[in-house]
């Protein structure tokens, strides 16, 4: 038996499978074609190579230049086919056969074929490419041989006709279709990569809605509409100009002056209240959730945090509502590792309630009636030091004296990757934002044993082998009929994590995207969960004829 798209969506626990097909083809009846917008950023764009780019700035830009076999319906976390027209999954859930769309053209005019898919997956996993996303493809058959250099192509990936690709997995992987929707799985033309060599990131060629028109380093990039784009009628905009090197505060002034349409770095924290208190400006701000959790890690291998009671006491000591106030209410208090909009989130779980007395009692029970001295590492950009001070005060409330170590991002990350260096870390500025909307994405690298290694991201150094086994079991559930069962397994895993309390989940950040008056399109496009800040392919401007 072969499962079709809708049933596969169920596997992944995504809502509204029946509306998927409708969403891919739905066009905005009010949309106008033409015109251009200006988007600003403070930092230069590092690269537009889909195998390399892995920051939130270039992520959405790459999405508009390239396509993968899978995609998400705009403004949602719902998987839809992209360059694949359809696909089938074998009964054991380990063989995927993708049927490609015919007549899709790269920006250089050549038609895309199955060979390009094979090439692209081999390229991203080849160690020479130095892709930060190579590990996502670990479930493809032959990955290990490519990773250690003993093979140059994935034995599990082959073309089965000019428009058909078969991918064999070495183990069942319920997240595989999400992986195929990652930028890292974008399809690139071999000849363009070969011609540009290491400079492909500056000379990107894809199949996306836009192509790169101009790139003046340090000043601007211009994306121009791809007239041959395979999604008929898209994109609406003729061009997007990204102006880089602009401080967020300057970008906001220019937006108010009508020179900028989207300040890519968002509303600067210092100006947030001013903007939101002005009805005219607040009306142009779109608010949405994001797949983000801000948390404090408690190093379970460093005394006294090796004692679960101490960790639970710290969980009760933190006044999350007040910390949310510190950032002007731009977040909601968190109770568990998963953010509320993630499938698998445990509804109705209250977490550790703020209770100083109970925390003190628990601390006394653990043998620390007089508290203890410790260190709290934090990234040194606003508002993180202020949040750390609030945490410090909360800890003082139960007698824990935490010294704040405010360092550059890279130094905090390095300290977290050592087993005996950082007793506590506030994750702000480095917090986990999901790579793809699946419950498993908040476990492996940050709470699983695999991440509790030198240089890893599991800064709690929490390693519970029983939970690792449960996680492996959950991700082996590929049967669509058991999708809910799988999500329940993930929910159970996170509840077990909370009992051991390696983290204090503090808040889930909300997103606020500001836009100019002339911009049109559904609000969901401006807080798109996968395209940050906005989904460039579907927005439009109102002032064109």
């Amino acid at each position: 038996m072969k499962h079709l798209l809708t049933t596969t969506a169920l596997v992944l626990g995504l809502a509204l499978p029946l509306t998927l097909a409708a969403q891919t083809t739905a066009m905005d009846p009010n949309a106008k074609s033409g015109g251009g917008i200006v988007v600003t950023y403070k930092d230069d764009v590092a690269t537009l190579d889909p195998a390399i780019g892995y920051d939130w700035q270039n992520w959405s830009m790459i999405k508009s230049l390239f396509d993968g076999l899978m995609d998400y319906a705009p403004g949602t976390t719902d998987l839809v086919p992209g360059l694949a027209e359809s696909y089938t999954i074998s009964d054991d859930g380990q063989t995927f056969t993708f049927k490609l769309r015919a007549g899709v053209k790269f920006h250089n005019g050549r038609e895309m074929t199955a060979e390009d898919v094979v090439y692209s997956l081999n390229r991203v996993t080849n160690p020479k490419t130095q892709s930060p996303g190579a590990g996502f493809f670990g479930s493809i058959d032959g990955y290990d041989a490519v990773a250690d250099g003993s093979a140059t192509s994935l034995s599990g990936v082959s073309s089965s006709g000019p428009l058909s690709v078969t991918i064999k997995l070495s183990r069942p992987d319920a997240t595989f279709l999400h992986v195929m929707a990652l930028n890292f799985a974008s399809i690139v033309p071999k000849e363009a990569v070969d011609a540009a060599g290491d400079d492909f990131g500056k000379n990107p060629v894809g199949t996306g809605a836009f192509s790169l028109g101009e790139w003046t380093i340090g000043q601007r990039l211009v994306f121009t509409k791809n007239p041959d784009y395979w999604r008929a009628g898209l994109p609406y905009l003729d061009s997007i100009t990204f102006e880089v090197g602009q401080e967020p505060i300057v970008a906001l002034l220019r937006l108010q002056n009508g020179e900028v349409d989207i300040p890519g770095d968002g509303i600067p924290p210092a100006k947030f209240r001013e903007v939101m208190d002005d009805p005219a400006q607040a009306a142009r701000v779109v608010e949405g959730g994001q797949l983000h959790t801000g948390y404090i890690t408690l190093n379970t291998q460093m005394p006294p945090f090796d004692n679960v009671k101490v960790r639970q006491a710290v969980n009760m000591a933190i006044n999350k509502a007040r910390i949310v106030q510190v950032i002007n209410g731009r977040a909601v208090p968190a109770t568990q590792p998963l953010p509320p909009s993630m499938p698998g989130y445990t509804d109705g779980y209250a977490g550790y309630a703020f209770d100083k007395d109970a925390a003190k009692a628990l601390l006394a029970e653990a043998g620390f009636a007089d508290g203890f001295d410790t260190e709290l590492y934090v990234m040194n950009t606003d508002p993180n030091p202020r949040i750390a001070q609030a945490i410090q005060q909360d800890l003082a409330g139960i007698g824990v004296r935490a010294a704040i170590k405010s360092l550059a991002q890279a130094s905090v990350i390095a300290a977290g990757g050592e087993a005996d260096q950082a007793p506590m870390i506030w994750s702000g500025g480095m917090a986990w934002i999901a790579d793809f909307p699946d419950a498993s994405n908040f476990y492996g690298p940050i709470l699983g044993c695999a991440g509790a290694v030198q240089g890893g991201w599991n800064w709690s150094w929490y390693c519970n082998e029983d939970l690792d086994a449960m996680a492996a079991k959950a991700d082996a559930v590929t049967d669509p009929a058991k999708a809910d069962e799988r999500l329940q397994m993930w929910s159970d895993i996170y509840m077990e994590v909370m009992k051991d309390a390696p983290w204090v989940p503090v808040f889930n950040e909300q997103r606020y995207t500001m836009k100019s008056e002339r911009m049109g399109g559904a609000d969901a496009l401006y807080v798109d969960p996968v395209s940050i800040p906005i989904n460039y392919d579907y927005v439009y401007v109102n002032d064109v004829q």
Partner: protein
Amino acid sequence: MASFLVRRLLQSLLILLGVSLITFVLLYALPADPVRQIAGRSATAQTVQNIREQLGLDQPLAVQYWRYLGNLLQGDLGRSYLQKTQVSTLIMSRLPASLLLMAGAIFTELLIGLTMGVIAALRRGSHADQALMIVSFVGVSAPQFVVGLLLLYVFAVQLGWFPIGGYGTFSHLVLPSLTMGILGSGWYSRMMRSSMIDVLRQDFIRTARAKGLTRRRIIMRHALPNAILPIIAMIGIDVGIFMGGIVVVESVFGWPGIGQLAWQAIQRVDIPIIMGVTLVSATAIVIGNLVADVISLLVDPRIKIR
């Protein structure tokens, strides 16, 4: 003169070598691992190891430095870790903007500083003198970040006379030049004032006055040229101060120069870019100092070559 130049050039090369060594050691002694930055958070240990080997970061520091130096001598600054682009390409595409800003700043600081200094010197002890010296003191002390934002707010946002940051036309250049020039003008006004006062005390000025020349002619033809000379030599040394200020000012005004490049690279631990910008800036400072020495030598025969 020729042997002096050769000696100074050799000294300069030694200084640059020292700068490269110190920067290199400092950057690699940082507790931040550049490979982790490249590999990202989802990378497996295998990926991290592969990248480390390919970049040669698994080698001892001495070997790494030796390799870097070898490439450097061939004019190769390496490739950016995160952008994969040639560092020299990145720097060359941004250097003109920084040089333009520097030229604008030098012009501004000389214009403001020299004018203020001359007026203060001619009215020594007056209220005007005191007021100008207070202004110059404020100019020297005010943080450039604050000055930049203030100018931007008043002249670009409120009055709309200039664009709100950016690069391209003459009007884009005015505010950042002014921001950088205000700092320097403080120094120059003070130097110009004392230099001018010095010159006005000289015998030849008394002679000129005794000849019955007009005050205007004495100042313009005799005092000013002599007072300016030692100051011109200072411009070379200024380059060093500019290189420091450029990081801040370029970031406030969105000026696409090498200061901005350095700032972004520091945040991302992109070591080849940081090394490259440091070396280019150090070279500029060394050349600036060299030029300053040569100018002093040319304009003031009293300085003996030793």
